[in-house]
């Protein structure tokens, strides 16, 4: 029994310690943001590998999620003769929830894991240490551009995901199931609120972008510099990001839409 408490205490302490180190690391990232902003080239090249290279994954997934939403929604709505609301249902689900959440989960798997592996391997091959000895701060040179690229890319990717999903829903709803095209768009236009739906969805994706990229760069930087250590860190990035996204989604949803 005593052992149980002891190990519980030890693991809580190590979680707190990691959280503390992660926060200090995040503070260092914030402090080095000005040095990245004067060299935007570093940021642009990272936006390409973090954002642009995730584009096709986001487009294809968004299309399928929108199509499935339209199929599932149609059968439920048509029971009530409300299939004209399909556009609203697809758009609201995507913009408020599925766009930010699914795009962030995909982003964690595609870009987050790559960031952790890249930074972890740079650490394992002494590239980060080498940079320090060349008087180049690896946080400012390597980590911060990647963090900012993730933070900026995530809302853009989530927006693209939702937009493509709505088009996917259109193909199925209007093209396959034969609902009225004008109704699909006009109902959506009438019911989707800019502040309530679109801005709140964007806020979610910014928060998810922040948490996923923070976890990814910290796990890479903090990885044990061996092949096993980097592989564990990469796994942790995906698992912790998924937990963080879903938990934060619940909290944000409760705050944004809880009083409706």
């Amino acid at each position: 029994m005593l052992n149980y408490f002891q190990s519980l205490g030890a693991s809580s302490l190590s979680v707190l310690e990691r959280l503390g180190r992660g926060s200090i690391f995040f503070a260092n990232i914030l402090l080095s943001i000005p040095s990245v902003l004067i060299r935007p080239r570093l940021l642009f090249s990272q936006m390409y590998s973090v954002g642009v290279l995730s584009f096709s994954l986001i487009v294809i997934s968004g299309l399928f999620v929108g199509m499935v939403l339209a199929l599932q929604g149609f059968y439920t709505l048509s029971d009530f003769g409300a299939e004209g609301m399909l556009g609203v249902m697809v758009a609201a689900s995507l913009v408020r929830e599925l766009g930010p959440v699914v795009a962030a989960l995909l982003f964690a798997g595609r870009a987050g894991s790559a960031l952790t592996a890249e930074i972890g391997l740079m650490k394992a091959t002494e590239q980060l240490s080498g940079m320090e000895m060349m008087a180049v701060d690896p946080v400012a040179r390597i980590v911060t551009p990647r963090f900012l690229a993730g933070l900026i890319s995530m809302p853009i990717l989530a927006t693209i995901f939702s937009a493509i999903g709505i088009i996917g829903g259109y193909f199925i709803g209007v093209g396959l199931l034969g609902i009225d095209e004008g109704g699909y768009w006009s109902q959506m236009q009438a019911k989707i609120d800019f502040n309530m739906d679109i801005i709140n969805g964007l806020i979610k994706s910014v928060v998810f972008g922040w948490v996923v990229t923070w976890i990814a760069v910290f796990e890479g930087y903090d990885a044990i510099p061996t092949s096993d250590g980097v592989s564990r860190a990469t796994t942790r990035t995906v698992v912790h990001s998924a937990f963080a996204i879903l938990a934060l989604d619940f909290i944000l949803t409760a705050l944004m839409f809880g009083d409706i």
Partner: protein
Amino acid sequence: MNDLTDDSTLIKVRDVHFSRGNKLIFDGVDMDIQRGKVTAIMGPSGTGKTTLLKLIGGQLRPSKGSVEIDGSNIHNIRHKELYQLRKKMGMLFQSGALLTDITVFDNVAFPLREHTNLPESMIRSLVLMKLQAVGLRGAFNLMPSELSGGMARRVALARAISLDPMMIMYDEPFTGQDPISMGVLVQLIRLLNDALSLTSIVVSHDVRETCAIADFVYLVSDGKVVGSGTPEELAESESEWAQQFLLGMPDGPVPFHYSAQPYVQDLIEH
């Protein structure tokens, strides 16, 4: 222990203690590194020679003691000053530590582009000069993955001298090299030291190669300096430890067997 405190000493390591977890790595190390000389730090694997370089470079902090470089205590200065000082220090890592996503040329140009505002034409000339010095001007366009181990180390050496440092630290430069690239590196370390008026610290356990170019040698074992002197003095030293290490004898002050309970007891116990 020579305790020179005049200007000829570039680095003063005083009573440095360092532990990793519960393992004591250094238990009071004192060293003086003379300007313009090649100083070797030798000892068996696992004695923390690389750790010592990291302590000198300010990447690790000793639990006690101090490291003074060119008059400033490297662990007491501000972050900015430390980075200023590091611009004058080159370090050659065992793996080369080249940035793998850019070419040889860009690797050597990296410190110049980070720390100077020189025009690209001048950077090109400087990089080609440094690459010429290590014999790899023709390889400027290759990626690090296309280099052999010896070539990677020479490129890293060109990068380490790109800002014309006052000192350079070599971490196990000869490990895993074929005889030709080993010979090239041995010669380069001495040549560059003399031609560029550098101060070199070579951490190694390759006795023959290191003694051939070192002006002064420190032998480190069990967290302490166990011998020091010129290679000739050490060769003639009567210290059992120096003899064991320099002649590569399997047993001696550094025992062949890792510490364990008595053999017989281990065998009959189960």
